[in-house]
């Protein structure tokens, strides 16, 4: 069963424990001065697989309020990055996480171009850089544990479980708290669905989410083209061969002898 995470952003008070858990578990370096993990300037970079960004908003009562948004790879159901990888270094696992295998990676960075959410980052300062993104604690998940960030959350902002079930739970929560949540489960249909699902009382674009994304799976578009290629390749080769032989025979007839190779040296 593919796992997912339901994030309730109304419950986050911005302690950033999740970002520390991520650094501890994945042994990422800290650089709060240049690459903060928490606050207005927080952004995903090579050493930050998850950040909590702070946003000034207006709450339901019309008062100024702060909201915190936990950002990380959304682990698409049909990930563009995995479909873009020419060596299969990025893979969607049956358990849900989209996992990166650095030993395979050749560093073409097509995944970074392909990702609709601009999630994969690069270790630009390394000699042999790796792509860098949240792995959804793949090894923990296959061992039956929660991702580190979820386990440490003091407010249980995040709920880990089967994605299908979480979608149902989320809609029940929206229905039961009409005054609180906006009626939009981010990640349910965005780019064909993501493993991480977000509930919020604010429009998602106000929380730094990229909302202008297609609502269908992106690899499906490419696949429409790629799946036709073998047929095109064969057909085209056959047509070219046919034209070649027709022309060769015609030339031979014209010249009265068979040019065996047709090469320019002849």
């Amino acid at each position, binding site marked *: 069963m593919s796992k997912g995470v339901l994030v309730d952003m109304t419950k986050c008070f911005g302690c950033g424990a999740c970002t520390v858990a991520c650094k501890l578990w994945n042994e990422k370096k800290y650089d709060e001065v240049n690459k903060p993990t928490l606050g207005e300037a927080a952004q995903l*970079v090579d050493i930050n697989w998850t950040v909590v960004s702070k946003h000034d908003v207006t709450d339901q009562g019309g008062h100024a309020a702060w909201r915190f948004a936990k950002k990380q790879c959304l682990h698409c159901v049909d990930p*563009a990055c*995995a*479909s*873009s*990888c*020419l*060596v*299969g*270094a990025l893979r969607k696992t049956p358990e849900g996480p989209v996992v990166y295998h650095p030993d*395979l*990676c*050749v*560093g*073409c*960075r*097509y995944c*970074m*171009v*392909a990702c*609709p959410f*601009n999630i994969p980052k*690069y270790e*630009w*300062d*390394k*000699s*042999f*850089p*790796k792509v860098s993104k949240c792995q959804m604690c793949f090894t923990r998940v296959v061992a039956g544990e929660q991702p580190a960030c979820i386990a440490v959350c003091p407010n249980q902002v995040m709920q880990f479980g089967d994605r299908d079930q979480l979608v149902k739970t989320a809609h029940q929560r929206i229905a039961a708290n009409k005054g609180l949540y906006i009626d939009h489960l981010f990640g349910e249909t965005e780019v064909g669905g993501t493993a991480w699902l977000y509930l919020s009382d604010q429009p998602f674009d106000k929380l730094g989410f990229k909302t*202008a*994304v*297609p609502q269908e799976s*992106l*690899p499906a*578009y*490419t*696949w*429409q*083209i*790629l799946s036709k*290629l073998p047929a*095109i*390749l064969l057909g*085209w*080769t056959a047509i*070219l*061969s046919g*034209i*070649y032989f027709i*022309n*060769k025979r*015609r*030339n031979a007839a014209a010249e009265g002898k068979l040019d*065996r*190779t*047709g*090469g*320019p*040296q002849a």
Partner: protein
Amino acid sequence: MTINGTRITFRMTPFRLVLIGFSLIFVGIVAYRLVNGLQMTNLTDAWPWGLWIYVDVKLGVALAAGGFTTAGIYYVLGVKKVKSVVKPAILTAWLGYCLVGFGLLMDLGRWYGWWHPIFSWGEHSVMFELYMCVLLYTIVLTCEFAPVLFKGLGLRKVSSFFTRLTAPLVIGGIALSTMHQSSLGSMYVLTLGKLNELWWTMLLPILYYSSAVAVGPAMVTCETALAGRFFRHDWDAPAMTYLAKWSGYVMTFYTVLRVGDLAVRGQLTALFALDTVSLMCLLELVIGCLLPLWFFWSYKLLGREMTQTMIVRNAVLMVLGVALNRGNVVFTGMAKAAGASYFPSVAELFLTFGLISVGILIYLFIVENFDVFPAHDQQAAPGPAQAHG
């Protein structure tokens, strides 16, 4: 050492000295890059692809399309009048693909793993298809050009072995080129929502392929015109006219498709929004499509004989247009999604200059020492210095 029974020649001219200078800088940058990674570039998380992908790969592959188009015209369609351009076209295509391969290698963060795709298939990836095709096509081009090389080295048996392979090589080469020229466009299909709608369309593969088929002969025309000036060759009017017509028809097809696609997708208003993005798109269309087609069709409809100037001018416009198109897809169309600016670093620029310089030097060397141009006699040929000066 001798080639074609004569001593190896390589004339030194100021132009070539400059190229050698660039090449030496290039070697240094390459060494530094291979050890130190991509820190020397201005690439960022917002701009993972930059100048190298644009010039060395996107543009390089498109402009090297002359190889498979002219070979196809000559061998498959059996149009014998383009004979004089076939060998130089294959040579430039071959060099072009070698440089593309090298440029791509420079761009790979973990370049030592360049061979991984052969053993670990990412068959859902357009990039994989592109990699495989470029790899195979480079081998095919090597084989296609092998007869000239081996003949020059006096290995006639090897040469004739490769000569006999020419037909399947050309057909395979066209098939591979069709796949990867279109794939350069398909690659950006995945950027739906990021790439500006003026460029994003499901027709990207067809547009890329058709523009490559149009620009390939145009590039061959440019090269031939340049080489003609350097080496004092005669202008092969029938061949050049044929190529110009070929480019004109295919570019017409491309333009109709491109504008029609914009119209169908309701992007014509965006095209005339007159912001930076739309102006770049208009520039691309005017230079690459409207101007050359205007010249082409006005000659065609008036029944006038196409002059050398007109052919070369059209070819140059088409090459510029395709360069603009590829650049717009890589940079202009992605700028908003990137949300940051990018300008290549000095190292990136010099690596690109160096790569091109190396290519030109190798081209000059091969042209001077091997039997590439039909009536070529290197003893009698005037040095490029004189031609250049």
